[in-house]
């Protein structure tokens, strides 16, 4: 896609930083000292030794009315890209063209002043985001209703709870009506309920308003729900562009660490308790969803492979995998004690796996804990928060697969005709 259809056209965009000065500033004294010490520093910099490309040679097009996601690990260049497109920073090379009025939301509540009242901040923040006063006047009631701050409208914002501040800030931003909306990880703040409301609002904006949205998030569930197409960045370069499912799967397969199935997660430094006669050394998890990179999905299987390091022969009566939601509520406890079998651990490294045939969890991020004990005797090793896993939406396509107000667990449902 290119030419007149493109709302955003990015052509070989690059941003270079000088290492050591990224986000830093120097005092005049340091500058003088350095100049005296290295009079040829300028030439050295030009030789390319201490430069760093936060983004390089990135090209893509986004069509009008498209909702595109940008995914990638930390340092992939997502924020740099958004900052360039928002004109906050200037690119070092390349070109970008954006057709239509641009609204960018790199942070919630930019320009909020704690001493000003909610009402005053709505106007202030709106003006900063590029809204006209008349426009804010027109949408004021709607904004206040969305933020649910009611009677605190004329209270200084510093007396608000942090949740209220975020709600108000997002409410202003959500009522911005640009033709191109650029949104950074702003949904990471706020409670789950409000996050859902924000997602709904953004979906409405893009679908009903025919607006183009460029969206960065670490929340793959949100990306899958909102975006039709995704761009994968890695270490400043463009890795792939394509349909959301493919790209999200590829991202998860590439990403190391917590959210990646089929890679070994090192647990030797995890917070734990227990007598330590045996310890969880490493874990990995996998489902059968190849198209989602092996990520678990609702009612799909989940296999946890464990490496347990034992210092002496130990018989274990209870080996458990526990899943918690993000508030620490225990949702699932898959414990071998219910099977009535014991497991004999040999000294050294033992490899075994627990397979949950069906995970009855809806899409979201969950915390996984590990437990190893001799029942009624001693806890051998307990890692309450070993790593996070994300249960993915299996199919996308708007709300089809994941209604917004789903509960946390799934159920098998059928309609019976009782006549």
């Amino acid at each position: 896609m290119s030419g007149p259809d493109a709302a955003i056209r990015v052509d070989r965009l690059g941003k270079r930083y000088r290492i050591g000065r990224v986000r830093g500033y120097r005092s005049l004294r340091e500058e003088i000292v350095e100049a005296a010490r290295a009079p040829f520093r300028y030439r050295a910099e030009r030789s390319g030794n201490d430069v760093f490309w936060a983004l390089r040679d990135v090209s893509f097009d986004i069509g009008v009315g498209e909702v595109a996601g940008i995914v990638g690990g930390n340092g992939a260049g997502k924020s740099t890209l958004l900052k360039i497109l928002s004109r906050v920073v200037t690119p070092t090379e390349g070109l970008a063209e954006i057709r239509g009025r641009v609204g960018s939301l790199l942070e919630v509540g930019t320009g909020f002043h704690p001493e000003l009242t909610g009402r005053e901040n709505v106007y202030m923040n709106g003006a900063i985001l590029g809204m006209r006063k008349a426009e804010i006047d027109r949408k004021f009631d709607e904004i206040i209703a969305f933020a649910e701050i009611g009677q605190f409208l004329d209270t200084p914002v510093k007396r608000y709870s942090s949740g209220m501040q975020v709600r108000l800030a997002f409410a202003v931003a959500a009522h911005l009506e640009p033709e191109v909306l650029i949104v950074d990880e702003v949904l990471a703040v706020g409670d789950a309920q409000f996050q859902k409301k924000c997602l709904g609002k953004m979906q409405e904006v893009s679908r009903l308003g025919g607006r183009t949205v460029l969206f960065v998030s670490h929340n793959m569930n949100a990306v899958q729900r909102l975006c039709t197409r995704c761009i994968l960045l890695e270490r400043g370069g463009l890795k792939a562009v394509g349909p959301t499912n493919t790209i999200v799967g590829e991202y998860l397969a590439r990403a190391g660490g917590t959210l990646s199935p089929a890679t070994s997660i090192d647990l030797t430094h995890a917070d734990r308790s227990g007598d330590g006669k045996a310890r969880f050394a490493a874990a990995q998890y996998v489902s059968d969803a190849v198209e989602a990179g092996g990520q678990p999905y609702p009612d799909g299987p989940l296999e946890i492979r464990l490496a347990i390091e034992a210092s002496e022969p130990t018989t274990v009566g209870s080996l458990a995998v526990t899943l918690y939601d993000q508030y620490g509520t225990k949702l699932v406890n898959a414990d071998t004690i219910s099977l009535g079998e014991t497991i004999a651990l040999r000294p050294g490294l033992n490899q075994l796996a627990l397979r949950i045939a069906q995970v009855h969890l809806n899409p979201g991020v969950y915390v996984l804990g590990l437990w190893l004990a001799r029942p009624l005797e001693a806890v051998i090793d307990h890692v309450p928060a070993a790593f996070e896993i994300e249960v993915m939406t299996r199919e996308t396509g708007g709300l089809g697969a994941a209604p917004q107000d789903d509960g946390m667990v799934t159920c098998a449902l059928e309609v019976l005709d009782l006549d």
Partner: protein
Amino acid sequence: MPPQAHARVTVVRPAAGWAPLHLRELVESYELLYFLVLRSLKVRYKQTLLGAAWAVLQPLLTMAIFSLVFGRLAKLDSEGVPYPVFALAGLVPWTYFANALTQASNSLVEQERMLTKIYFPRLLLPLASVIAGLIDFAIAFCVLLCMMVFYHIPFTGRILAVPGLMVAAAATALAAGLWLAVLNVRYRDVRHALPFLTQVWLFATPIAYSSTLVPAHLRPLVGLNPMAGIVDGFRWALLGRAMGPGATLLVSLAVVSLLLVGGLYYFRRMERTFADVV
């Protein structure tokens, strides 16, 4: 509504060297400027005991000290008007200038989050600082008028020159503020040097003393300090001093214009690195 084919196209590209001023964009952002000024006015005296009285106390207290030290002890010539009102006529525009300069110089650094998170014409920040200070000036100016009544100094038509002089003072504060604000983004030394700078500048300006102390043929040189011409102008407009600020003021205006235009271009040139450096 889908964007039309003729929709406005934003082009983002690398930039180097001098950039045009784009004053039109600045004019289009008048509403944001208004809200920035409003915010700084609303916030300025929040959670203070004396509130806006500070706008009056600053020049008045300095006047009291000057009257004691320079008027009573040093017995400096005050051009035939009582020393306190002579000093205050200089201190009122000076206090405006010093505060506006300080706030403009710190405006970018203090709004770091705005700089790194949102696009808007960066010039609005120092501009808003300079404009917001005018309210404090207006309050202090009323006190100056009261002092004139108290000392039976007649008002003349020359008072009409005051708005023009204030535009010049604002332009001076903005001009110097632009340079310092840009430097401040890179070198935080500016913040620490500012109080010292304004103090030296205060004594380099004929406020505690009369510019008539300077030999007549050197007086236009005094105008190289723009505030000297402006303070002289104030005394001419309010205190009925015979000699007009003429040559001094002309030199001052020329200096301000150069400093301002240079500052604007320097600011435009440097602003694209603000978010990277601040």
